[in-house]
């Protein structure tokens, strides 16, 4: 695999993750200053209540899911099924789509809209087989030079007996490793809940974006509250403490940019939300084209 092409982008992400700054203090890079202007469109001194409102928006039942965006941002689309081993996990959807006349590979978590679909999609919580489907499609994209777009929207990888027996931890680790090795441009967008390992498994990309009202966190506010506060009802306090909202993720340089949503949130206008997402994704891929030799 010609993984050299994307490495500038990847290494750039790595140096951002290196946390040297965190350890020794640093100042904003030129790129960050550019992003800062985006950031200023958001309130950078959010109250605990504002942070919590974003958590609720990120989980809104009417928020657009991966397939809502797929049907709006792609021309032709063909869904790919199966991990070629044991299962086809519908909590993760994958396929090939036409974006601005170019074929792009898509992988994303999918929650259900009504109860029946929610159960069928396991509420967007994938089994290891789901991540194996993702890896299989990533390798195919790499083989054919298709850029990869991932849409992240999961409360987390499914915590179940079978999921553990089938290797949940290893599958998440290998999915990240597979993304790190890709030679094609990769863009990840957190469109709703970016829940911990289950989310980062699809988010090791050259460019990582978040929608304005999405969240990205190491643990759910409820989980954090139940452990540190010994009381899950303290979720709001926990969320305020670990700041899962886009503004703070950008501030911490964990993401490269924020995708604006329609006023009131993506759920108020799926078409406009999709158009804003399409522009941001196309822009991110265009930037990566310039980076690549």
């Amino acid at each position: 695999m010609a993984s050299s092409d994307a490495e500038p982008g990847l290494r750039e992400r790595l140096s951002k993750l290196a946390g040297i700054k965190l350890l020794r203090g640093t100042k904003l890079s030129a790129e960050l200053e550019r992003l800062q202007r985006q950031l200023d469109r958001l309130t950078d001194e959010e109250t605990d209540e504002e942070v919590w409102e974003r958590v609720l928006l990120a989980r809104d039942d009417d928020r657009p899911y991966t397939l809502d965006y797929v049907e709006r941002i792609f021309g032709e689309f063909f869904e790919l099924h199966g991990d070629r081993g044991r299962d086809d996990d519908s909590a993760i959807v994958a396929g090939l789509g036409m974006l601005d006349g170019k074929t792009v590979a898509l992988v994303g978590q999918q929650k259900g809209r009504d109860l029946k679909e929610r159960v069928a999609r396991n509420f967007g919580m994938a089994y290891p087989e789901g991540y194996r489907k993702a890896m299989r499609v990533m390798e195919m994209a790499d083989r054919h030079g298709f850029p990869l777009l991932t849409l992240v929207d999961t409360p987390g990888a499914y915590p179940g007996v079978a999921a553990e027996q089938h290797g949940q931890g290893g599958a998440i680790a290998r999915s990240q490793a597979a993304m790190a090795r890709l030679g094609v441009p990769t863009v990840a967008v957190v469109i709703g809940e970016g829940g911990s390992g289950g989310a980062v498994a699809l988010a090791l990309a050259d460019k990582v974006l978040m929608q304005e009202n999405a969240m990205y966190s190491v643990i759910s506010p409820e989980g954090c509250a139940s452990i540190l506060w010994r009381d899950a009802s303290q979720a709001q306090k926990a969320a305020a403490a670990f700041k899962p909202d886009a503004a703070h993720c950008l501030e911490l340089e964990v993401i490269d940019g924020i995708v604006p949503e329609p006023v009131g949130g993506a759920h108020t206008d799926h078409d406009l939300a999709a158009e804003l997402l399409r522009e941001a994704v196309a822009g991110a891929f265009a930037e990566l084209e310039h980076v690549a030799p």
Partner: protein
Amino acid sequence: MSTPQGIDVSIEDKRVVVDQPPPKDHPNTCPGCGSHYRDDELVRHLRVCPHCGHHFPVRALERIGQLLDTGSFVEEGADLRSADPLGFFDLRPYVERLAEAETSTGLGDAMVIGAGRIEGSGCRLAVMDFAFMGGSMGSVVGEKFALACESATAAGVPLVSIAASGGARMQEGILALMQLPKTVCAVDELHDAGCALLSVMTHPTTGGLLASFASLGDVILAEPGALMSFAGPRVVQQTTKEKLPEDFGRAEQNLRFGHIDAIVPRSELRPTLARLLRLFGSSG
């Protein structure tokens, strides 16, 4: 068989977890058979119960002493300390927890790295210490692991990692989660350089550790009875409402399901690693 004590295995959880701290046995009383030992006895037996074989936890420096040729260890990155990027405050401030952990353990954070030899074969080591905030992985653990990979690459020797961790360190929020991709990419570069990662999982290796570098070993070993699960037993129990299998997430189950190469009793760990270092050393 002992159960993980007060570690964050709730990563992924959204439900109330009432965290009842387990009855405080004396640390030298065997949870397996109740036998009690003087500390020097346990040290002599590598902290394995001579009566029932239960593997007690081992602190990082003692582990290094068990594994490496005497006097061969040279520590690296000892000066790294965590900052408090989020100004995190739960029932107590993060900085206070850090200070307390450093005082009680004498360590800068939950991982010790360095160079050494096992039966004469050179390697790099990355050893975690559960006593430091449950071995949780924050930016210092991630950075130290990355440094260990770079050091192994520079020396052209394998990296041996000994995991003991409840997962990502919540007090560093999203930056703790970023240590997963960071350590995964570090292993990728180690592999690009043709160097091996020999991953040893000890009790417990859960959450973000299992979902990052610990699962990417060219060879994966585990100690008997070690809990190796992404989600913890309590979380799975509350999510699924099923009764969990007796050996849920244990090394034995992981071997049966094809996730690890071997379960190695502590007494055989040094010779086993030595053999693997000879096998991996003889390549490029």
